[in-house]
């Protein structure tokens, strides 16, 4: 069961990191930011 959760989180985090690292990062200020 742990492996199932790990795999799902791994896919979501990997695609999220791929998109964010390729473009506009997340601003920690909550007021946006460019890419």
């Amino acid at each position, binding site marked *: 069961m742990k492996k*199932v959760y790990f*795999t*799902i989180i*791994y*896919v*979501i*985090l*990997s*695609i*999220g*990191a*791929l*998109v*964010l*690292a*390729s*473009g*506009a*990062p*997340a*601003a*920690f*200020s*909550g*007021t*946006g*930011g*460019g*890419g």
Partner: protein
Amino acid sequence: MILLLAVVAAVFIALLRGGRFEHLLRVPLRRGWLALVAFALQIVEIYFPLPQSQGFVSWRTFLLLFSYLLLILVVAVNRRLPGLLWIGLGLSLNLAVMLANGGYMPITPEAVARAGLGHLTLGENPGARLLATKDILLPREATRLWFLSDILVLAPPSPLRTVFSVGDVCLALGAFIFFQRTMRPPVPRGAAAGEPAS
């Protein structure tokens, strides 16, 4: 910020359309960890930037561009997955304009002012960095491939104030397609050809 929202929205919309997280178990994602490494490599340069771009001679710029090489590798080995070609296109457009302008994403002072993001700038001269971004201030006339730079502005009264590029739009579209296709149940054999599923 807008891409983080795009990824979260893509997942939520997929769930609303009947998608399930467990279908992600079928995704043959390869070398995904390299994207996490690339993201980590960018943290120093994005959240702890020097006030001014150092150009290509800086190890900071090298790390930023090296992280893009890792991202290109991830896209290349996963190019058959849904949406990955759009992500590759967005990545390429952003990288092209960054390479043409000293390794960073150009943004005009006018776009920064329109979006109300002046508090993020670390200087006023050309080449000044913006906190929490990969951006440098550059006037439009000094920007190569200007149309690929951060020119799309979400300004007040929009609750989200941000500036993004055409490449970012492609990335958001790619993320949307990826989660819609991979979180949906598999299509029964024959259904795509119009045959009744039994």
